[in-house]
């Protein structure tokens, strides 16, 4: 019964939470740059505007592919919040991203196509660590099931701090934060217009944005798993730490410049090997 409540709450609230987080992110970024910044509800005004704009369809599959991206992300998130298999959630998450890549490759813009190939490169960069995180949870708790992981007496982070650091490093890619916002960026003016979203406008872009909000909440759900255990107060601690992680990602976004693709790949794989690999090795020896 609780699972159903969680899934419905996720499906209904995730776009709002994601939008609010985006609004907070823009305000914090503005304050870091000594600006006033937009209002908290700006992301919702943006969405409303995008839905009201004239529909320009560059082809007849892009909207459908973007909708698939949204729906598959919703499925992945629902599985996480239903307490299902974490490994499956991560696989479905990658499938969703493939639809975004297809949506971007479907149009004729060279910028969008370049964005699509960079998005694939980003997947190559973060995917190994994401899988190691799932393996880490299995080694720590003896189960891939989210339902079992949250019922452990000790928080998983006690056994997998390296994986947490690695996951924080690679989720900057997923959040499209600098220095890893290669395929598209929240910030204007980059070397390839808007990357994967170059030919998306109006409703198509709004759907992509909503999907990103679902993804954001999903990723914070995984961060949550690191800290939560069978005690009630661990939920509060997990909430607070997720907030801190969110702030750190915003800070990192503002203090770093975009890197080249080779730096992205090598740095992510190095972190995966050092932080993730060593953590897994120790887990295998100790547990």
């Amino acid at each position: 019964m609780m699972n159903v409540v969680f899934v419905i709450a996720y499906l209904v609230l995730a776009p709002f939470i994601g939008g609010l987080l985006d609004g907070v992110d823009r305000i914090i970024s503005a304050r870091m740059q000594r600006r006033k910044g937009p209002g908290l509800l700006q992301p919702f005004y943006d969405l409303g505007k995008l839905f009201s704009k004239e529909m320009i369809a560059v082809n007849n599959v892009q909207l459908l592919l973007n909708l698939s991206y949204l729906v598959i992300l919703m499925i992945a998130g629902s599985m996480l919040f239903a307490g299902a298999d974490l490994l499956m959630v991560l696989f479905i998450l990658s499938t969703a991203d493939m639809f975004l890549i297809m949506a971007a490759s479907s149009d004729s813009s060279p910028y969008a196509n370049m964005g699509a190939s960079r998005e694939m490169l980003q997947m190559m960069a973060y995917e190994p660590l994401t899988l190691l995180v799932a393996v880490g949870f299995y080694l720590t708790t003896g189960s891939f099931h989210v339902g079992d992981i949250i019922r452990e007496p000790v928080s998983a982070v006690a056994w997998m701090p390296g994986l947490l650091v690695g996951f924080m490093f690679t989720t900057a890619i997923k959040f499209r934060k600098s220095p890893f916002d290669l395929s598209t960026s929240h910030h204007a003016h980059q070397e390839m217009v808007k990357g994967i979203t170059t030919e998306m406008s109006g409703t198509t872009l709004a759907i992509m944005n909503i999907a990103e909000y679902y993804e954001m909440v999903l990723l914070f759900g995984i961060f949550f798993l690191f800290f939560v255990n069978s005690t009630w107060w661990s939920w509060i601690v997990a909430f607070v730490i997720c907030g801190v992680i969110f702030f750190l990602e915003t800070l990192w976004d503002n203090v770093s410049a975009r890197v080249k693709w080779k730096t992205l790949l090598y740095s992510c794989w190095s972190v995966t090997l050092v932080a993730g690999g060593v953590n897994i090795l120790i887990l295998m020896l100790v547990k």
Partner: protein
Amino acid sequence: MSKVSKSPWLLHYDASSCNGCDIEVLDCLTPKYDIERFGIINTGDPFQADILLITGGVNSQTESVVKQIYSQMPEPKVVVAVGICACTGGVFKECYNIKGGIDTVIPVDVYVPGCAARPESIIDGVVKALQILDEKQTALRQNGGDS
């Protein structure tokens, strides 16, 4: 329904400007003027833009580009001509390669004079353009159709 003026995304194009007005346009983004407080984003993508900000007069090379950018922007949209060259052609008006102001090629909604236009007057011009943007949105809805 939400108003388009709550989240106007801006596209900036230099038709043949001396870069004086362009620097003033970018100046609007700096902490001192901070146009993001109006929800304005300076995007580089005509597909996602609501306001087209053009500096400099149109010459024979940029004419087709201006037309293409304008046609790629989804309705409702407004055009702001920034600087005297974009308004009328300015001191380059008589040049053999200059067609004149932006309105010789595409319809312009707001004219912001100045050489170079001050950031304050650019912001004033954009805010005026927002009202026109809302009027256009209402007109589009009243005319029906799938806008």
